[in-house]
């Protein structure tokens, strides 16, 4: 491999270099006292540079295939015609260490285009990095393995940072970055044919004032619009801190021929991360963990379709992360904690071997313009466990596997119809033929050693299927700015084909190897979902999402029981939704104190009313939803439900949709029950309001029949299930549990729900015959004044 730079025919490389002996000159005030304190002796040199450098192209070649970084420029960030100021003071101390104290002011490093030699007409877009730096680097002889290496101590502060990505005149950038880093005792050694970098202790803090978006081509790395002077819209800001230990190995050789190999192990000793929206935060605190990258290769190569690409292929990646506390909202209340362990590695799913690779290419969405990013992606999550801890109660979703392959495109787009495709303001993430899936083996409660149980259906309460396979097309565009001020605005159009999702799922591996996963499946699924102007904001209460308009069609070709592909079918189901002004709020904290099975506000009054008083703690999650079901606009924008059976067989052996008999609930909509604002249309502002408070909590589970259960644990009908780590199956049954036993009841999800609506109507219910056409059987249904409350606990079947 080799690297070359090609300057313009009239290169403009302006370097003003001044070498001068160190004196107590006025300009020396720019080096801070702290930096000076680490230097012994008063000898050395100072280099002062005003630097502007441009190159048409920097190229990297690997096995004859190249990648070009075009429009390379180093200079001033605030004025492209000016230079960036550099001041470097070089000193050698009496321990033979080389000390560099440096100051960089207002520098921009930029690439206008990144292209692959094999696809010169396509660009990945441009990148720029603005910053001012002040810091110190000390280098001394001797690495970790002996005298042939080097040891570094480094500390620097970056201010006024800006990191931007630009395509077709639109850009998204991190604005007002402040970064403080201290890395001491970093060693660099050559071990055999490997460059070994050890960073035993690196600490730092960072703050990103805003993540901004611009659709004005005249703006380039500016916080304010150059025309209006208004501040550019912001997605919000970030901040955090980290304390890590890292070990990295670099060696020559790609996945094939030339290239680069990277191995890395990083331990996160402590960290925290905050997303800040108008001063209110989503905070991940008490983060610890590690990850280990094994055999990551970098090649300029081709992807599986023969397209030129910069390939990143991975041998394996394993790790574990724990977030001790997730806080949300102005008051900083806690949702609880999460822990995830994972292994990304080659694995066979559905008879096909999946690996982990990303092939970066230029172009993005073909209609969005010449610049953009295309990621031909394949992943293989061989195994992961995901756990949630709520007030010390831990539930583990065990044996998560995921696989997929397809193209992901990235463009910064503006609100326009271009080349026949509708685009929106923001960062557009597109999906093209992404064939993917995931599945969860089962549930464990308490710890990883607990026996595997069913119960992954509990995830349905949070909107996740226990298993799902699909082909995905469409996009999600993330715009800057929420309902007010900072935040996110989402527009999306998603299409899922050939989907198979489990409503109920048995394990895919009961301990004896992979088996066909049984369940209740929505299969042969085609799903279209559209969202317009959905704002996402962190509020004082939590996370608020409001969608101006959304509509979807879920066409379940077959609802199957048993095997997802061959199980017998209940027929076809089609569910259409159309909502305007619907919203959802996620609030930290679950149900708190609850009287289950009675009415009472204290333990005594609840017990007196025949209920059971439960104190579910401060953590947990509450989801508040308001669904405004709008009246039908056309055949695609309406709320309806259809069930079709007795379909005719098609030529391919399948069934022809629409050829059978259908039961249709047509035009379902909400209302406030009258036209109170006298605009000639019934008001529709209340909708269906549902509050779900979800906690992980202990619950009473009783045996339903005499004799041993499915795991062979004996017990009588009516005996209570008690968790017991000393028992072979992890639990036992007790006819008269003691007070201590009651402290070890099984964990599950406890849901307190309330759903209300003023009026819900169905315009008509039809029976549709394939020959005779529709016949209306019900000319209108009107439901009024409903307030339904439920306290439910859901646990795996004993």
């Amino acid at each position, binding site marked *: 491999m080799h690297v070359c730079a090609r300057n313009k025919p009239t290169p403009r490389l302006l370097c003003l270099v001044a070498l001068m002996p160190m004196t107590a000159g006025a300009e020396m005030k720019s080096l801070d006292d702290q930096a000076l304190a680490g230097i012994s002796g008063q000898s050395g040199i100072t280099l002062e540079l005003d630097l502007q450098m441009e190159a048409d192209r920097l190229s990297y070649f690997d096995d004859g295939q190249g990648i070009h970084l075009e429009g390379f420029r180093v200079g001033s960030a605030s004025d492209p015609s000016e230079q960036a100021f550099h001041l470097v003071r070089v000193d050698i101390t009496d321990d033979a260490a080389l000390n560099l104290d440096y100051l960089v002011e207002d520098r921009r490093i930029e690439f206008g285009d990144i292209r692959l030699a094999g696809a010169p007409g396509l660009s990945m877009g441009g990148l720029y990095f603005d910053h001012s730096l002040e810091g110190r680097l000390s280098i001394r002889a001797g690495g970790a393995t002996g005298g042939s290496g080097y040891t570094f101590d480094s500390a620097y502060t970056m201010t006024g940072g800006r990191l931007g990505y630009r395509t077709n005149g639109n850009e998204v950038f991190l604005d007002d970055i402040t970064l403080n880093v201290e890395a001491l005792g970093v060693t660099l050694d050559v071990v055999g044919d490997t460059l070994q970098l050890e960073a035993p202790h690196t600490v730092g803090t960072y703050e990103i004032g805003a993540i901004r978006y611009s659709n004005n081509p005249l703006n380039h790395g500016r916080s304010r619009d150059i025309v209006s002077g208004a501040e550019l819209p912001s997605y919000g800001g970030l901040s955090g801190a980290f304390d890590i230990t890292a070990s990295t190995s670099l060696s020559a050789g790609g996945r094939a021929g030339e290239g680069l190999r990277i191995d890395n192990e990083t331990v996160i000793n402590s960290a925290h991360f905050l997303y800040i929206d108008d001063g209110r935060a989503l905070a991940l605190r008490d983060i610890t963990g590690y990850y280990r990258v094994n055999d990551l290769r970098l090649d300029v190569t081709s992807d599986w379709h023969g397209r030129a690409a910069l390939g990143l292929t991975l041998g394996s990646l394993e790790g574990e992360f724990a977030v001790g506390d997730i806080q949300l909202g102005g008051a900083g209340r806690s949702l609880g904690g999460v822990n995830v362990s994972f292994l990304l590695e080659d694995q066979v799913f559905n008879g096909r071997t999946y690996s982990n690779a990303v092939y970066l290419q230029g172009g993005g969405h073909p209609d969005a313009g010449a610049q953009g990013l295309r990621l031909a992606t394949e992943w293989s999550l061989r195994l992961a466990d995901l756990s949630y801890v709520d007030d010390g109660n831990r539930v583990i979703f065990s044996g998560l596997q995921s696989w997929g392959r397809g193209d992901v495109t990235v463009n910064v787009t503006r609100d326009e119809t271009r080349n026949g495709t509708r685009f929106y303001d923001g960062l557009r993430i597109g999906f093209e033929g992404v064939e993917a899936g995931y599945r969860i083996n*089962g549930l464990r409660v308490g710890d990883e050693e607990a026996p595997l149980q*069913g*119960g*992954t*259906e509990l995830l349905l309460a949070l909107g996740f299927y226990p298993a799902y396979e699909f082909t995905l097309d469409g996009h999600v565009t993330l715009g800057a700015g929420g309902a007010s001020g900072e935040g996110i605005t989402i527009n999306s159009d998603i299409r899922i084909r050939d989907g198979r999702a489990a409503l*109920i799922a*048995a*394990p895919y591996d*009961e301990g004896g190897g992979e088996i066909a996963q*049984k*369940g*209740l499946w929505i299969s042969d699924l085609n799903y279209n979902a559209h969202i317009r102007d959905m704002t996402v904001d962190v509020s004082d209460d939590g996370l608020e999402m409001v969608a101006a308009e959304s509509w979807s069609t879920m066409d379940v070709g077959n609802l199957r*029981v*048993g095997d997802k592909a061959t*199980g*017998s*079918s*209940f*027929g076809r189901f089609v569910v259409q939704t159309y909502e305007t002004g619907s919203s959802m709020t996620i609030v930290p904290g679950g149900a708190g104190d609850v009287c*289950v*099975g009675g*009415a009472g506000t204290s333990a005594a009054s609840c017990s007196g009313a025949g209920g059971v008083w439960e104190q579910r703690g401060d953590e947990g999650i509450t989801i508040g939803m308001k669904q405004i079901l709008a009246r039908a606009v056309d055949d695609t924008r309406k709320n309806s439900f259809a069930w079709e*059976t*007795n379909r005719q067989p098609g030529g391919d052996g399948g069934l022809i949709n629409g050829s*059978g008999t259908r039961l249709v609930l047509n035009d379902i909509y909400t209302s406030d*029950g*009258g036209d109170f604002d006298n605009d000639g249309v019934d008001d529709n502002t*209340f909708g269906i309001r549902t509050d779900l408070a979800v906690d992980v909590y202990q*619950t*009473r*589970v*009783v045996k*339903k*029949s*005499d*004799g041993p259960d*499915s795991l062979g644990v004996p017990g009588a009908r009516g005996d209570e299930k008690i968790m017991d780590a000393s028992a072979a199956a992890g639990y036992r049954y007790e006819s008269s549990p003691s007070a201590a036993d009651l402290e070890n009841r099984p964990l599950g999800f406890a849901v307190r729900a309330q759903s209300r*609506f*003023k*009026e819900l109507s169905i315009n008509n219910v039809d029976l549709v015959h394939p020959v005779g056409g529709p016949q209306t*059987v019900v*000319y*209108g*249904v*009107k*439901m*009024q*004044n*409903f*307030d*339904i*409350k*439920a306290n*439910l*606990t*859901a*646990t*795996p*079947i*004993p």
Partner: protein
Amino acid sequence: MIKTLGRLGRPIAFGACLALTLPSAAELTRLDDESLSAVSGQGGIYLSGDISINEMGGPVENRYFGRCEDTTKKCGARFAYRLKETGGWMVLDDIRGNFAFEGLTLRVRHIDSGFGGDGELFDRDVLELGLPDIVRFNDVRFKIAASNTPRPTDPGFQQTDIFSVQMRGAVIMEGNLLVFPEGNP
């Protein structure tokens, strides 16, 4: 029970089997254990809890609906439908009450044995709803009525209450409800 499952083996559009294992029917319990031994997979969930409808009233407050402490108004929910395009409305009015249950289970189960030999012939997957032993009803009530308009606040509203239903007590529901497809989907 055995005969019931045998009948379900015949083609019908939609099959459902309610297996009631009454305490006095000891032989039915034995059959259930036998069939359980053939279960593969341990997916599914176990649900307990209580559900109430309009315990204190609903979200509408007007001249017809109100809170439950206001005895001049109705605080229950209302469900109206009509079967003729220009006809009147059948109404379930003032719907209120609550019920509690323990141990409702839901899972997919493969049946290939038991049931007096019918299971081996059946050899299929079913959706099994394990019924809770006891469902307790408390002050469940509603009225059957006929009305000339869907909303009680519509002009010219008239309604004739036909009869009222009130329920309180416990219902024993033992056994399993087996649901499986039949016929041409």
